[in-house]
């Protein structure tokens, strides 16, 4: 199996991006955005994770099979979240009297 050589400047660029995003996280946390604080923090965290997975963990240069398995990991996490949230979101749907509140 051959490995593509990743230029050092690519690693430096990713490293700088991670640092900048970390600083952004800290700065944004000090600004009052209400519920958007959470959304911004999570978005930045996801971007950082993707950068680490693609470049530092070499998934970008890996085979399709490796990418499939990485994708499966995230897909399974999505299953967990979607099904749990389907419970939480639909708990109030039942119309009229319920057995616990009649």
């Amino acid at each position: 199996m051959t490995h593509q050589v990743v230029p050092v400047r690519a690693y430096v660029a990713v490293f700088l991006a991670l640092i900048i995003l970390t600083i952004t996280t800290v700065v944004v946390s000090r600004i009052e955005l209400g519920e958007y604080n959470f959304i911004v923090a999570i978005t930045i965290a996801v971007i950082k994770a993707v950068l680490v997975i693609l470049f530092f963990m070499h998934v970008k240069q890996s085979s399709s099979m490796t990418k499939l398995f990485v994708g499966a990991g995230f897909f399974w996490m999505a299953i967990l979240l979607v099904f749990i949230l389907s419970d939480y979101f639909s708990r109030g749907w039942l119309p009229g009297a319920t057995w616990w509140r009649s």
Partner: protein
Amino acid sequence: MWAAPSRWGWLNLLTPKGLFAHDTYNKLFTMHGIIMVFFFLVPSIPATLGNFLVPPMVGARDLAFPRINLLSWYIYIVGGIFAITAIVRGGVDTGWTFYAPFSSTYSNTHVILAAIGVFVSGFSSILTGLNFIVTVHKMRAPGMTWSRLPLFVWAHYATSLIQVLGTPVIAITIVLLGMERVLHAGIFDPALGGDPILFQHLFWFYSHPAVYIMILPGMGVISEIVACFSRKSIFGYGFVAFSSVAIAVLGFLVWGHHLFVAGQSMYASMVFSFISFLVAVPSAIKVFNWTATMYRGSVSYDTPMLYAFGFIGLFTIGGLTGLFLATMAVDVHVTDTYFVIAHFHYVMVGGMVMAYLGGVHFWFPKITGRLYPEGWAKFAALVVFVGFNLTFFPQFVLGYLGMPRRYAAYADEFQILNVMSTAGASILGVGYLIPMIYLAWAWRYGPKSPQNPWGAKGLEWEQSPTPPPTFNFDVPPVMNEPAYNYSGEEKEVEIGR
């Protein structure tokens, strides 16, 4: 040995008032569950038969990562030490499910020690799964295509997918439990702002698929045994192979059926109920295909096949009663009763342990190079079957009549059925003891086995000498015929060799 706490438990239920102090009984059934689920059923077939047989079955000299394999053994031992320490220091009383907030806030027992044991042993499971996946993808011998893989390997591949995708979630759940218990972070305990149903979601996201981690390797064993002792290739090979993967995938979408009465949304419950019915389809495909394989086959009744018969019958009862439990209205009636206990013991013991014993007998000559005494083995298989049914069938009735699980005492009218169950457990214990004795004897003193005593198909039986040396094959084997070629189809001509 690890089933012992359950024996004490059944002894306790000999009389309506119970023989042990109630908190002792709580600790007994908890440790029984933790040890049997996390330290026996999950690793049993993959870590023993799987580690030994997957490499020769695919024509490899060893697993892809032998050192990681050894590491997974060490990790298992470390996890086991934590769990045993929890027992020695006084035990745990939460039930193997560690439900919060009892486990995170109220229990005064060694929850953290036991939880660390489960957490650590999970990594052992993940590494085993990782090793099998890479081995099956990368180490197959020439000619060993996916459509020629033994169904034992297919089953282990599907199991490995669950181990790798599911186990991290139980690890995270245990960490969160520890954070709440030690740091009082409000995650599951309503008094701290948490949600106890969230724990059940996270716990069962792993622990329901874990049922398939336990049973799928057993199904792989049964496929091998049924084909060999029917002298026929497996009926519907492709369906049996893909049904393993279908069980692995669908198994991740049904966990909510454990939460029907926990306060889960009715709409979510309906979806989980429906998908739980779907997962019965691939399981039924396997049972029907094994039966069709036997149909007009040249069936012989050697010990492994007796266990396979036991598996097919008992797993079918266990599986069908699972559909009762997946039905929301029926589940309300029988949830947390002995009906549930009977159901999952029919799957786990009647299914998985039967398959494990069948597999141990089937491959014993390959693993040790010795033959076991067939008469004793058949007798033990019969004792196990009778003991098992006498233990667990009365529990279906007990549960339906309303006897709750996890209570040290019960109403007087349940005594006859409980005495039957305790008697059956004693017979079952003898049934397990007999193979322990004659297999240990045969390992040393049994007559030498020929290379392939059953006339079975598969690269592991073509490999010589028996028992195999450390690296299985001196020369890489070539697979040049279909899997389970008992009908004797022509082997492919090898061009250029």
